[in-house]
């Protein structure tokens, strides 16, 4: 029976799509049959980041409206086994999402897949609500910055009151924090919130800290999830986060300033 994970944040531009792509890929690399769904109807980006934008024929909305079957819309990833993408429509908007349609598709996917990763749009309206309603797990993507933290707090409130588990009095959605775009040098200068500051305000367990990395932009440009860039700090941090999600005890890396030795400067290790 598949587990539904929602990657949400409230705030826009913090790294939900990047993280959804990386996380889903990470789970698939571990052998779990995984599908990642784009809920950002009208502003779709997941297909770009996953590198399958030239293979989109049918999408999530087509399946909801009965215009296509689910297996016609699912795209198999070319690089990683067990990984599938369900893109969304670019021409419609979030009003096209219906609770019954989303429920039907998620139920069908749960029969076939181990993990279903839902890439939420920003905000707290229909698109975001649809993506989190059926979730079993929520990963709250937050930047170490005051507006992002406040919006994440808001989305936690929404999860606690407007998810199906909350409405039906079931066990609550598990909530974990993914702190992205973390820059230890700026934290040291006092310009950026520390991990502990964010944890104090949000009071949820920490899944991982993803360092600010130029590799993210490079990866998104070539349509490859950054977790596949093994040399990058961000990619490695995502691998660690997937491990922690699966219950492993992995130490947090990249949270303090790395003193670059002469050797590593010579070898020009990419960030």
């Amino acid at each position: 029976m598949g587990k539904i994970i929602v990657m949400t944040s409230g705030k826009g531009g913090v790294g939900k799509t990047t993280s959804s792509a990386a996380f889903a890929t990470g789970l698939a690399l571990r052998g779990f049959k995984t599908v990642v769904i784009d809920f950002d109807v009208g502003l779709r980006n997941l297909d770009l980041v996953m590198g399958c934008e030239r293979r989109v024929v049918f999408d999530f909305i087509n399946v909801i409206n009965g215009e296509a079957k689910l297996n016609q819309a699912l795209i198999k990833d070319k690089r990683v086994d067990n990984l599938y993408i369900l893109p969304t429509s670019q021409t419609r908007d979030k009003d096209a999402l219906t609770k019954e349609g989303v429920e039907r598709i998620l139920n069908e996917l749960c029969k076939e897949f181990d993990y279903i990763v839902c890439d939420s749009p920003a905000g707290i309206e229909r698109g975001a609500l649809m993506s989190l309603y059926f979730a079993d797990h929520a990963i709250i993507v937050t930047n170490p910055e005051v507006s992002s933290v406040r919006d994440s707090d808001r989305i936690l409130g929404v999860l606690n009151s407007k998810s199906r588990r909350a409405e039906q009095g079931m066990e609550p959605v598990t909530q974990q924090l993914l702190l992205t775009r973390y820059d230890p040098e700026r934290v040291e200068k006092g310009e950026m919130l520390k991990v502990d500051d964010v944890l104090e305000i949000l009071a949820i367990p920490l899944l991982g800290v993803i360092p600010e990395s130029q590799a993210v932009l490079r990866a998104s440009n070539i349509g490859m999830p950054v977790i596949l860039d093994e040399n990058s700090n961000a990619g490695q941090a995502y691998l660690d986060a997937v491990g922690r999600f699966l219950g492993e005890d992995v130490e947090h890396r990249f949270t303090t300033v790395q003193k670059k030795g002469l050797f590593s400067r010579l070898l020009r290790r990419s960030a």
Partner: protein
Amino acid sequence: MVAVSSAGQVNERDAPFQLRGNSFTMMVLKVLDPVSANFFPALAGKVRQAPNFFRHAPIVLDFDELSADVTFDVAAFVARVREQYLLPIGFHGGPATVQEQSLACGLVPMPTGRAAKLELARPVDSSGQPVAPPPEPVFRPALVISEPVRSGTQIYAQGTDLIITAPVSHGAEVLADGNIHVYGALRGRALAGISGDNGARIFCQSLEAEVVSIAGLYRVSEDLDPSLLKKAVQIRLDDGFLRIALL
């Protein structure tokens, strides 16, 4: 196909509306001298102190203190109040002419809110006999919240105290008819004694609140003494003033 019960009433689930009871806290503008030349400049000054707090705030106009012979154009008065972005939605008290004009310009007659004057003498009924004291209040256990109160959430402890053993986030609102205890950081808005209990108090382990209020008297974050911020404090009403003291 509408299900009809034996009483002939439409199944409530099929009705196109829902009628629910609800309670709202509102500010009261106690009008003492409506014809004073200083009225609107002073009101404008008050609004300027916290413009976002007052913007489009619904208010009730309290005309209780007006003497019987005061006359003024209520409609014009209300229009000028609206210019300050305050929204009068109701009124209370006042001489008959003021009440008639208020009804005429669409204000709702409101029952007394319970921020009443302190009545020390024993009340007497119409024949002059002392009335029996009101029955002892029934004990109502406090509302206890153990999870963080997230931004955008509102908690209301009706007829009792509110105890929160977790932080209250920015953008959250906690209200109680009684006292409010926050065993954690208070970062949002806290309003105690909202039905008029002047004796209500607010306690918190770390004062970082946006607004604190007791029985309608409030103070915004900017007006809090910086030496009290992030400390464990007790807030109470003393002689009509909000006093904040370290615990």
